[in-house]
């Protein structure tokens, strides 16, 4: 038993065991490279993509780096996907510039590229399937104003200040408050990387620093859960508005710890991306942006069919 036998055995097992789907290559092959993988949001995007794959009879693979900071890992994934010679590519860039040479390569090889989620800052993608994050966060601001009675202090806990979604959601919320609600003051905007624990600590420090705070907007799933945790640990009674869904957030809304949340339509993002790729393969012309929509939901509307369909666990 030496290293060679061990390694060849496992590699062979890998190749035979999991390689099987790659062998059946008569269907169009579409590679999606996303910004994440294990998060429930991305799994919902994947579910939508898989649904479209079954419907349109294509093969879809879905990959993304462990964390949204790993720009180079995502580039490696895109490079490997290109080597596979796919018929089309779906891509949600962590950093558009870094991906440009590879996207150019895809264009030169006539592989259609469909951007999704935060999209790609380039003219190579044929279309972008995405949520209007600015408008969605503005809706969160409106709901916040309504729930706190139109005046007082509020804060934002967001995931990061470098990504498009982070920037758009914070701007969308803060600008809406400034423009439409002169009696409301945004006293803090802090970033917890979308990490539950970090966002919890941030929330607690905001609450302790501002005892008269009326509400907090958590700008993505991890941030929102952090806000709920912080509120629970300090026994506070502020208004909380979240973003996206997931089992924990849905439970918080049911229990009344969170007043409501904005949901994108992640399933729709995945579905529309694959659908657009299939259309591109057929040579159809695509709209430059496919708006995949968003909703505000709370305990009373959570079970409505149109909402329940886009929430994920």
């Amino acid at each position, binding site marked *: *038993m*030496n*290293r*060679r036998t*061990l*390694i*060849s055995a*496992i*590699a*062979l097992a*890998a*190749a035979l065991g*999991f*390689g099987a*789907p*790659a062998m059946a290559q008569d269907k169009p*092959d579409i590679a999606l490279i996303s910004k994440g*993988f294990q998060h429930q949001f991305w799994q919902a995007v994947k579910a939508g993509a898989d649904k479209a794959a079954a419907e349109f009879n294509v*093969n879809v*693979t*879905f*990959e*993304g780096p*462990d*964390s949204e*900071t*790993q*720009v*180079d890992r995502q*580039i*490696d*994934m895109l*490079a*490997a*996907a*290109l*080597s*596979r*010679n796919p018929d089309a590519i779906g891509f949600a860039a962590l*950093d558009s*510039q*870094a991906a440009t*040479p590879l996207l150019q390569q895809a264009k030169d090889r006539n592989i259609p590229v469909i951007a999704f989620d935060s999209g790609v800052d380039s003219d190579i993608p044929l279309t972008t399937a995405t949520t209007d994050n600015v408008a969605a966060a503005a809706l969160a601001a409106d709901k916040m104003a309504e729930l706190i009675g139109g005046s007082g202090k509020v804060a934002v806990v967001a995931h*990061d*200040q*470098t990504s498009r979604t982070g920037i758009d959601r914070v701007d969308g919320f803060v600008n809406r408050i400034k423009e439409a609600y002169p009696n409301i003051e945004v006293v803090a905007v802090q*970033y917890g*990387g979308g990490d539950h624990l970090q966002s919890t600590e941030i929330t607690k420090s905001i609450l302790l620093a501002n005892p008269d705070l009326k509400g907090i907007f958590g700008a993505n799933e991890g941030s929102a859960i952090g806000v709920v945790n912080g509120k629970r640990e300090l026994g506070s009674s502020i208004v909380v508005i979240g973003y996206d869904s997931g089992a924990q957030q849905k439970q918080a809304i049911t229990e009344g710890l969170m007043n409501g949340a904005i949901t994108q339509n992640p399933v729709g993002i995945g579905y529309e991306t694959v659908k657009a790729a299939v259309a591109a393969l057929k040579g159809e012309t695509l709209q430059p942006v496919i708006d995949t929509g968003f909703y505000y939901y709370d305990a009373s509307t959570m079970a409505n069919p149109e909402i329940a369909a886009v929430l994920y666990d």
Partner: protein
Amino acid sequence: MTDTLATPAKPQGIRITGAFHRLLAFSGLIALVVVFSLASPNFMQTNNVLAILQATSVNGVLAIAATLVIITGGIDLSVGTLMTFCAVICGVVLTYLGMPLPLGILAAIAAGTASGLISGTIVAKLKVPPFIATLGMMLILKGLSLVISGTRPIYFNDTPGFTQIAQGSIIGSVFPALPIPNGVLILFLVAIIAAFILGRTVLGRYTFALGSNEEAVRLSGVNTDRWKIAVYALAGGICGVAGLLIASRLNSAQPALGQGYELDAIAAVVIGGTSLSGGRGTILGTLIGALIISVLANGLRILSVAQEWQTVVTGTIIILAVYADILRRRRL
């Protein structure tokens, strides 16, 4: 070359073992390549082989830095965030201050060396265990990268030729059929220099000696602190090179990236047969370890293996590789 890459601190028998071991690690790599080539016609394409090499360059350079420290019996957890820190410093010098390219390169390597000096001093003089000292440095550097960059990526659009450091191809401009990216050349260059230092210089001899029996070295009148600090500084400088590579590859310094990269580097080091308890290791082994990691990642992706399973397979390979090493060692 063979001699420079072998473990010099031990007598004759080990030297043969070293050669044998490299052969084994190498055959593992070959086995993977053969299996993937048979499984998919897209694997052995020039473009894909280049993609694999390109993907190895950053982790390979980081792993070489980690190897040096690990041979002394220490560990460096700060390699990933130090790489980012150096990239950010380079961005500040080139983009914010508008200085010429060579100064940016120097700044990155100097920043790495300085950070290594600090880590080494904390370990050698303050006697803080390397794990803790470099864990602290990892966090300090992560924070400083964010502070200095204002948590935004710094782009190198104003420095023409910056992307050429990793993405261009000097070889390709002479032999168009062989467009090996410069990043890969730099990896091999760093490997050759590190192997030379380990095998042919006093610093190399003390690196192994510190890992084998630091007390004995000290008692024989050697200033072990100074040599230890030198090793950490050298490793830091190499992380500076990695910072340049990743920044050039992405055409930007991404301040939030880097944490977690130390684990991939350490994985490459152990797969390559370097002992975590120090005193034993080779640069060639580390290089092969880094290649095994990227061949695996790339091959599994080419085969469209679900991502959940990719990580399971990679983890399994790491354990098997090290276990095979232990078996072989026991038998000898």
